[in-house]
């Protein structure tokens, strides 16, 4: 086994190295700079693999973050050639332009160092909007069925990996320090459609404090790696918030 696997593993390495990638990586904090590296281009290489190569073989001091490596944890998002992306699932060939890749930290979040950002503001807004399930006193009268409209609407936004890619893509986040951002609002919309939840009005009030700041740029939906559509979710919230405001219900942001 040993012999066979070693030989074969090596053929993997020996695959004709197509070319060197010209990689630029952001080094330092907010006031850092771009630095260039040459990384061998391999078949099946993701942007995360490029970053890993640099850290393992060229500059061990490079800081970056990842966990699951398969697009489930949302830890590895970076800005790749100007676009926020999940790097573990972004093939180099998808992102490189003429053999060049420029990798920086995510926008709209404080940079800790190099490619690692502090995601705390993103999560703190999530927490402050109380975007979480609130058990209801009594279960819904009608059981939830898989194909009812509310369930479908809830399902449409449920598979968020909280990667903050949408948050980085959104100008409204950059322009409004108090804008909760697409992911939080997307979560609130799922909760509003969850008939088991005991605080629909509370969620709507939380949404009402921020959803009007969405300018429907749709950059979030375009960038979301898992194919969610926060714009549509926010539109839904705006509709409900509008209705609630007209009926005199809106209490304004919860304290």
């Amino acid at each position, binding site marked *: 086994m040993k012999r066979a696997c070693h030989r074969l593993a090596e053929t993997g390495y020996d695959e004709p190295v197509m070319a060197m990638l010209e990689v630029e990586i952001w080094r330092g904090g907010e006031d850092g700079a771009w630095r260039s590296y040459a990384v061998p281009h391999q078949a099946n290489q993701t942007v995360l693999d490029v970053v890993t190569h640099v850290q393992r073989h060229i500059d061990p001091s490079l800081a970056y973050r990842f966990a699951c490596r398969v697009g489930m944890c949302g830890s590895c998002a970076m800005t790749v050639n100007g676009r926020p992306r999940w790097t573990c699932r972004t093939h180099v060939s998808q992102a490189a332009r003429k053999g060049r890749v420029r990798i920086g930290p995510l926008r709209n979040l404080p940079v800790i160092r190099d490619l690692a950002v502090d995601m705390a503001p993103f999560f703190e807004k999530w927490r402050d909007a109380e975007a979480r399930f609130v058990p209801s006193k009594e279960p819904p009268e009608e059981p939830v069925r898989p194909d009812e409209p509310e369930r479908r609407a809830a399902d449409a936004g449920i598979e968020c990996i909280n990667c903050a890619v949408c948050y980085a893509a959104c100008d409204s986040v950059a322009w409004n320090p108090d804008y909760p951002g697409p992911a939080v609002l997307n979560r609130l919309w799922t909760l509003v459609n969850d008939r088991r939840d005991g605080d629909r009005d509370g969620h709507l009030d939380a949404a009402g404090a*921020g959803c009007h700041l969405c300018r429907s740029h749709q950059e979030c939906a375009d960038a979301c790696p898992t194919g969610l559509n926060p714009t549509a979710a926010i539109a839904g919230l705006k509709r409900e918030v509008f209705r609630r405001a007209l009926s005199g219900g809106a209490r304004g942001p919860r304290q």
Partner: protein
Amino acid sequence: MNEAWLFAAQRLSAMVMAPLVLLHLGVILYAIRDGLSADEILSRTEGSLFWGAVYGLFVLAAAVHAPIGLRAVLREWGRWRGAGLDIAMALFGLLLLALGLRALAAVL
């Protein structure tokens, strides 16, 4: 001011203005073909309850809509926030309202 209400007011005023502006644009395009004259405007509007209502409603809606919109732009691009901005925008709304009503009075 409650953001949700501001939002609702802006959308509501937009909904009110949309048909009015369509009408207005249509009339202008129609009227302008033979050149515009004060007589013409006045003959259409003077003493007309209908046009009075149309333009009155428009002025009112615009005075609500524009300041809220401008407030958003100034907050986002002008980095101006807080009570000062809100007061300025309220004043701007009143100005629009006053000028609009004055114009309305002139043509009625």
